[in-house]
């Protein structure tokens, strides 16, 4: 499954990058979403995929007998998801304001500043 995931993640990155490279600035939004999904899945995959063993300990138990999925990677992903969500929200509003102020959505026309 890791191989398959690696391919999916590669595609997510590629798609994200392609969208970030568009002139139409709103496509950036899609690019950022794809990128953060890709990065989160990458952490998930790199940490090792485990089926059906959530890191939840049963009532009355002290720990999980046997294998369990990596809780740390999950915590990292949670943090990363929330951060990228926040950043995305900011970026969306920024793009909206920028289009409003600059009166264009064409990145090629936003050359007023280097």
């Amino acid at each position: 499954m890791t191989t398959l995931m690696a391919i999916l993640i590669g595609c997510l990155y590629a798609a994200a990058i392609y969208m970030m490279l568009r002139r139409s600035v709103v496509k950036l939004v899609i690019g950022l979403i794809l990128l953060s999904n890709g990065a989160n899945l990458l952490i998930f995959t790199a940490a090792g995929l485990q089926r059906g063993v959530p890191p939840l300990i049963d009532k009355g138990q002290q720990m999980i007998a046997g294998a369990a999925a990596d809780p740390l990677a999950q915590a990292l992903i949670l943090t990363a998801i929330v951060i990228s969500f926040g950043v995305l929200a900011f970026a969306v509003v920024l793009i909206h304001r920028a289009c409003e102020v600059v009166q264009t959505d064409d990145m090629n026309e936003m050359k007023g500043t280097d």
Partner: protein
Amino acid sequence: MVMIAVLSCFVLAALAPRLHSLTGRQTGWLLALLPAAIFLYFASLIPLISSGETVRHAYQWLPSMAIQFSFLVDGLSLLFVLLISGIGFFILAYAGRYQEGHPALGRFFLFLLGFMGSMLGLVLSDNLISLFVFWELTTISSFMLIGFNHEDDDTRKKAHQGLMVTVFGGLALMTGFIMLGMAAGSFELSEILAGPSLTEHSLYLPMLGLILLGAFTKSAQTPFHFWLPNAMAAPTPVSAYLHSATMVKAGIYLLARLHPTLGGSASWLTILTLIGALTMLTGIILASRSTGIKRVLAYSTVMALGTLTMLLGLGTEKAALAAVTFLLAHALYKGALFMIAGILDHEAGVKDFRDVSGLRRLMPKTTLAAMLAALSLAGVIPLFGFIGKELLLEAVLSGSRWQLGLTIATVTANIFVVLVGALLALKPWFGKTITTPKAAHDPGPALLAGPLTLAALGLLFGLMPAIPADYLLRAAASAVYGEPVSGTLALWHGINLPLMLSVLSLSLGLLLYRFWTGWREHTIFIERLSQFGPEAGYNKLMQGLVSFSTWQTKTLQNGNLRHYLITTLATVVLLVGWAVLRLDKIALNIDFSGLQLQEVTVVGLLLITVLAAVTAKSFLVSVALIGALGFGVALIYVFFSAVDVGITQVLVETITVLLLVLVLYRLPEFRQLSSRANRARDATIALLSGGLITVLILLVTNASSMNSISSYFLEKSVSEGYGRNVVNVILVDFRALDTLGEIFVLALVAIGVYSMMHLRTGVLPVTNADKRHAVQKQREKSAKTGVKP
């Protein structure tokens, strides 16, 4: 005490503007008391130094790097100190009167005193680095002085030019000093000089080259000589000070100082004598063609500097003595002559030889001083300049390798020196009286004291050469030569070759003076040549710099975000790709076993979704697809045991869609703007990057073999974190700091969005009717332009 001498200049400099507003007209004299005191103090050291002793003081600065303020008084530095403080005394007094009433006179004193302090520090420093520090300070303070009339565009340009050239050299010098320090094992000149010669050291040539670069730029050696005449943009007291005894002599001082350690090699001899001779000739020929009084003086200074360099290049005992003698003579007459040029300007309003004649009767005292100084320059007996010139010729004649060539050059130069001397000694004073812009008259003591004294000293030393020789010059020459020098100075050596050459050049020079105008007309080609000269080169370089940087900025920082992204990504692909290709074995984790149906389906559908989201023609469609993508990704998290992550993913995706929807109708629609070629290029970059990521994951998952620290959390979650949801316990306890940072990120987003939307100016169409109207207009517009909305 030495430290105090140097420091006091800076302290007084800082106080000067305030002091000036208090004491007004007499400030110049008042401030001049300081150099006078310094002069007297150092003069009191003459007996000690002339007996071969040295004085050294050291104060810690950066001991870890062996950098300290250490001061060494020996013959050479003493000679310079006396010149700096002595001439400085007159210059301050002179400037006080010359610049009287100037609104920024206080600042002028500030920089002049600052310059004096720097110069004193430079020549007194025993530590190479502290020497360099003062070196740079002279550069900066002279920049401020040269640009004193800063509202004039040309002045600013010239000041900038002088600064660039000398700082360029300064930086080379610093590197050279570092190498010298490394080679000699010390930054202390006294130790370096006491140590062995470094001509055999492996770093010798680069070190020499760099140090010479520093010295040559500062001392205006060809091809860097052009900044010096341009520095005449400075007020005359500045020129008088900088170009007689101080600033430009710093390079010479340095060469003289380092001669025992770096001198004596073939490269030293070759470079110094050739550059020196070239400079000498360039300077004096240009001087002979100039008509501006200060300009002539400036070029003749270039000549003198070249001569000194040449002498130091020869490096013989005789040359050393000749060099210090010539240096002293030059300081005296050149200081006087510059001040006289200033007097002519100040009292008669003339700046050009062609505009002046016959002032002898109107300005008798000035004439006297001028003639004494100019004749000393011309090397006329019995002035001190004559002795200097005789020694020069002697040294050249006894020189080794380039004997003949150098002699011819020196004699040629001397012919023109005589011409220049004659110009200065005769042209303004004799002949028909021309009406000058101002009613000419002798100035007061403040202006006249300097030239008269210096010129008189030239006569005195000429008549009694033993005084400077015994008390000063021999010690100085010894320091230069590295061993005690035993020569004496005398006005009369009998009829010898140097004397004959002197007479030859004197007569030819006077002849040339008669045909000065014709000479200038016949040599007009030199002017044309100058467009290929070093100054033109400098200007080209600066223009080239600006146009190159403009081009670079246009290319790199072109305002196009996509280029930035492409460059960044290309860097990623190249550097990471390179690192991957370096691997001993590229072992990828390729394994399709154990796949489950639902997993494959979800991944497959996700791939379709991603592709569709990228190719979608409408933002809305993309957003809807992103929603679907979110569910798919959540499924993956669920399939691989991440319950909390799955839930969060679903929620975040939903709220993302809500947010997008809230701004959506105010965002422009997707447009297809890029050309097919650009899209292909972008797709290539994207696929390369994506492929690289895939490879990295496969590499890492294949190589990982270590146990993760996460087993700790699984063990301790219940027993020490009191929670069964390990992920949550990590979030709120084990790694609560991450979570803390993260909600602050959210808070920042909230503030950012809040302020972005409330601190705005634009107004939106608000009703449906408005909106439709706007859309209608947009459609009409796009129909005209043929772009799909």
